[in-house]
Structures are given as C-alpha cells and as structure tokens.
C-alpha cells in the first residue's frame, strides 16, 4: 500500500510522502508509536518492523519466485515443440540466476536507489550497501529493507522472462544471455525507477500501478513484439508448425502462475492487512472472469471451449488486474477480467493473424495488450473507497486519472519499444540473434544445450 499509495498522493500536489505517512503511521500504531514511522532515523525505524507484514512479504516473494520457475517455464515450455522444451525451461531458470545476481550487484540500486533527476537510481545501494535490516520508510515502513529488495527482485526476474514467449524456438542462447542482461539493466531498471522509485517521474505524475502493469507487463510485452519483429518468423510459420507439445504442462504452468500471482498482487500491499486481502480477492476474481470470457469467445467463434483458451484467458485476467489490484473493488475486477478475456482473445485471434508477425506464445498479445487494458482500466474503476491513498478513476468522477494512466502507458511503450529495438540490433550486429536454420530445424535443445527433453530409452 505504501509504495503505490504514495504514488497517487503525489498527484499535482507533490505532497505524496507527507500525505501517505499518516497511513503508515496508523498501521504501525498497533504495535509501536506513530512517531517511530515518521522518524527518519534508521535506528528508530528498526523497531517499526512488523512480524506479520514481514512474514507475508517473505511468503509473497517465494510465491512470485514460483511464477518464473516452474510457473512461466512450464506454461511456455508446454506450448513449444518437443525439440525446444529445454531451451525455454533453460531460459527461465537462467534468468532466475542471472538477474538475481544483477539485482543485488547494481540492479536494485539503479531501480530504487537515491534518485538522479527522476530518471534512474544512483549506485549508493550497489552490492546492497545501505540495504539492511532496517525498514526504508519511503518504500515499506514495516518490513526490513532487504525483504523489500528481494520481493522486488522476483519482479525483475519474471519481467524479462515474459519476453521469451515472443522469440521462443529461434533465438540463439548466447544472444539471449547478452540481450537479457542488457535489457534488465537498460530497460527494466530505469522504467522500474520511473514508476516505483522515489523521485521517479512517472510516479510523480500520479500514475497508479499497484503491482506492475506498466513496469512488468507492458514493458515486457512491447519488448516481446519488437523481438518478434526483429527476429522474424519461425520456419514454417504460420501454417507448417506443430501444435503445442504438452498442453498439460501449460495447464500446470498457468495454474502455478495464478497461484504465484497472489504474492505478486496481494504481496504488493507490502503488509498483511486489509488492502492485501482486497488485492487477493480482486486478483482471483479477475482471473476467473477472464478465463470464462476467453472460453466463451472460443464457443462463439470456434464452437468449442479449448483448454488453451481457458488458461490463456485466466492469465490475461491476471495481467490486467495487476495494476488495478490495490485500487478497485470486486465490481471493477469483474469488468477488468471481462475486458481482458474479450480484448486479448480478439487481438490474438484476429489482429495478430492479420498483421502476420510471429509472437510465438503471445507474449505481446496477452501481456502488452492485457497490460494496457489493465493500466487504462485502473484509470476507469479505481476508487478511494478501496484505497484511500489511491485515486478515483473516470467512473468515480475523476477523468484526469485516465489521462495520467494513458500517459504512463505511452511512456512505457515508447521507451521500452525503442530501446529494446536498439539493444536487439546491437546484439544482432555483435553475435547474431537468430539460431541457424539447421539449428532451428533440429531444435535448440540439442543444438544450444546438447540435451534433449525426452528420450525413447528407459
């Protein structure tokens, strides 16, 4: 609540911090004196650590970890062909390792460290210097700063992971590694700072993004589209590709994503409180409704519900509710879920087909399109009755919020789109992005990793 509540407090007034502190204080008052929270002295703040809040954010961190591996890994892994299943699992697992290291060495500092002109954090917190047991009241006043740091780490890991869906089955692993480390540093960290970092300029605009609609989903989703365009289509696309090799994997992955998303969204309250409960409820409801909506669209256009449709819808709903989770009530969640299922379905079914690019697993169609819908919908259905530190949306008498949301979306799409394009071109020039045609035919499992996912031998 603190993190995002603050964001809104800033609208037009620049009083966010001051405005939200009483809320922090109120919560803390249950256990400690309010004065402690307001105090800038780290020693005093240390006593503000709340056991319940800390426990919940630690559990949430583990839940969000689970979203990347095995959640996203198996969701994507099941949707590719047999010969590429390991390459996708490898990419997800590799990101968990690589970005975790990047995050503690300098990524966290760039994202959340002391502000430089509203654009980026400085390196004061590199190697987690100054990130210790004491809470940082700017971000989360009742949990140790390190806990906030590692919770955020899991977001930094999964975001590049989402892009994998676009270039699956054809990107060289070496190029993947170089691109992802660059992308995490030059795209994710700055955008994260703009939206969530103290002093970040999008945050100052008053944009609402509870758990990462812009930072995570739109950011990754637009990079995914650019990657699909730069890499080009897979051999045989669109009509000569085998179907998903293991839909049960995809179902398991989607279910784990849904499960982990409770940590993603409800954990973003950064406290074990009513707002976390509310975020949990609307997250669940939006996902359920979006699954039903996509499945219904399937019946309308294809006469049958499909398993892949149902789970795709549920994931689209989770994407869309992410920015809104701390600001909307259950009515808003139903509308957002419905919109996510219908819009993402129409996009993936008709628009993608028409445009002809090969977003292999619909990373753009689900995460960017669903993310944009969610970010804008937050500007429609947000209400201060859910989160007094938030803002009202268009349907609650504040059309200005919708415009702010629109701006935040446009900024993210423009920056991530352009810089992702440049990074891909640089990596392409340096080492080449695309696997050779022969590798692609044989499959990346064998050519990039010298392993196969399945064998006929016992």
């Amino acid at each position, binding site marked *: 609540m603190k993190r995002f509540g603050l964001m809104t407090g800033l609208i037009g007034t620049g009083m966010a911090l001051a405005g939200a502190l009483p809320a922090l204080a109120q919560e803390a008052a249950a256990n400690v004196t309010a004065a402690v929270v307001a105090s800038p002295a780290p020693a005093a703040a240390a006593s503000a650590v709340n056991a319940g809040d800390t426990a919940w954010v630690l559990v949430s961190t583990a839940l969000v970890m689970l979203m990347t591996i095995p959640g996203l890994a198996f969701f994507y892994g099941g949707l590719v062909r047999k010969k590429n299943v390991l390459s996708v699992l490898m990419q997800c697992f590799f990101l968990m390792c690589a970005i975790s290291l990047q995050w503690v060495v300098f990524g966290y500092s760039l994202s959340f460290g002391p502000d430089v002109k509203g654009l980026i954090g400085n390196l004061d917190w590199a190697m987690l210097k100054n990130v210790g047991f004491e809470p940082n009241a700017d971000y989360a006043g009742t949990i140790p700063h390190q806990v906030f740091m590692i919770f955020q780490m899991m977001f930094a890991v999964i975001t590049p992971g989402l892009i994998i869906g676009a270039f699956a089955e054809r990107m060289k692993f070496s190029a993947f590694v170089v691109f992802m480390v660059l992308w995490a540093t030059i795209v994710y960290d700055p955008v994260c700072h703009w939206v969530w970092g103290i002093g970040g300029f999008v945050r100052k605009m008053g944009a609402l993004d509870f758990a990462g609609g812009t930072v995570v989903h739109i950011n990754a989703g637009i990079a995914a589209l650019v990657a699909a365009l730069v890499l080009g289509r897979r051999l045989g696309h*669109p*009509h*000569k590709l*085998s*179907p*998903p090799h293991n839909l049960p994997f995809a179902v398991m992955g989607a279910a784990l994503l849904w499960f982990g998303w409770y940590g993603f969204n409800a954990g973003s309250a950064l406290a074990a409180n009513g707002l976390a409960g509310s975020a949990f409820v609307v997250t669940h409801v939006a996902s359920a409704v979006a699954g039903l909506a996509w499945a219904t669209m*399937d019946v309308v*256009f*294809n006469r*049958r519900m*499909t398993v*892949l*449709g149902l789970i*795709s819808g549920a994931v689209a709903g989770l994407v869309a509710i992410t920015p809104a989770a701390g600001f909307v009530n259950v009515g808003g969640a139903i509308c957002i879920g419905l919109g996510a299922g219908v819009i993402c*379905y129409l996009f*993936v*079914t008709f628009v993608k*087909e028409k445009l002809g690019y090969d977003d292999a697993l*619909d990373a753009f169609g689900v995460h960017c399109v669903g993310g944009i819908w969610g970010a804008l919908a937050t500007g429609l259905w947000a209400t201060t009755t859910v989160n007094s530190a938030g803002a009202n949306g268009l349907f609650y008498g504040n059309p200005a919020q919708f415009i702010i949301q629109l701006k935040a979306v446009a900024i993210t799409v423009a920056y991530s789109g352009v810089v992702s394009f440049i990074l891909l071109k640089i990596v392409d020039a340096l080492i080449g992005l695309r696997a050779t045609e022969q590798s692609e035919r044989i499959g990346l499992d064998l050519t990039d990793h010298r392993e196969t996912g399945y064998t006929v031998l016992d």
Partner: protein
Amino acid sequence: MKYIVAIIQPDRMDEVLERLTASKVHLVTASSVMGRGRQGGIAQVYRSHKEAGNLLKKMKLEIAVNDDYVKAAIEAITAGARTGEVGDGKIFVLDLEQCIRIRTGETGGEAIG
C-alpha cells in the same frame, strides 16, 4: 513364415490381443503411431489457430507367424478390430525371410513359436 503388420484403432487393442491369444498367436510387438487414411482427421485448434496436420492416433501391431497361423492371426485381428466404421485400419502380410531367437540362436520356424 509371414510378417503381419496391422494398423488398428487404439481402442480395439485389448480385443485384438485377446483374440490373438485365443488363436495361440503370442508373439506381438505393438507401437503407438500416427497415421491417416480415407477418413481424414480432426483439425486441432490452438488459440483460434487451426493446425493443418491432421494425423490420427493408431496402434501398429507387428506379428511374425509360421504359415499355418497366418489365417488364424488375420481372422483374430479382423474380428477384434472391426467396428464397421471408416478408419478401422489395414492388415499387410509380408514374406519373412529369416527369424533368429537371440537367447538360443534357433532360426526359422522354430524361433517364431
């Protein structure tokens, strides 16, 4: 000696095996295969994208028999696999040049039994 290859519907497998056993034909190798015949297949749809390939699941039986058992084996497979619908499958009968039992080194008709 003959080598019988039969392509049948997967759900007829148990019935065919029972009838082969009743006809004293014990040697069978079975594998799960994909194939198509005149009946075509069922188009699959993934995220509204229709897949072109439409092979259907079948079982392939491979049976080596001495000449005396050819008729019985064919009758057992036919009786067990027939539903009367398109897609019941095919039986191919090939001449078998040699057969060697690996454990004993026996060859020919002795080895099949």
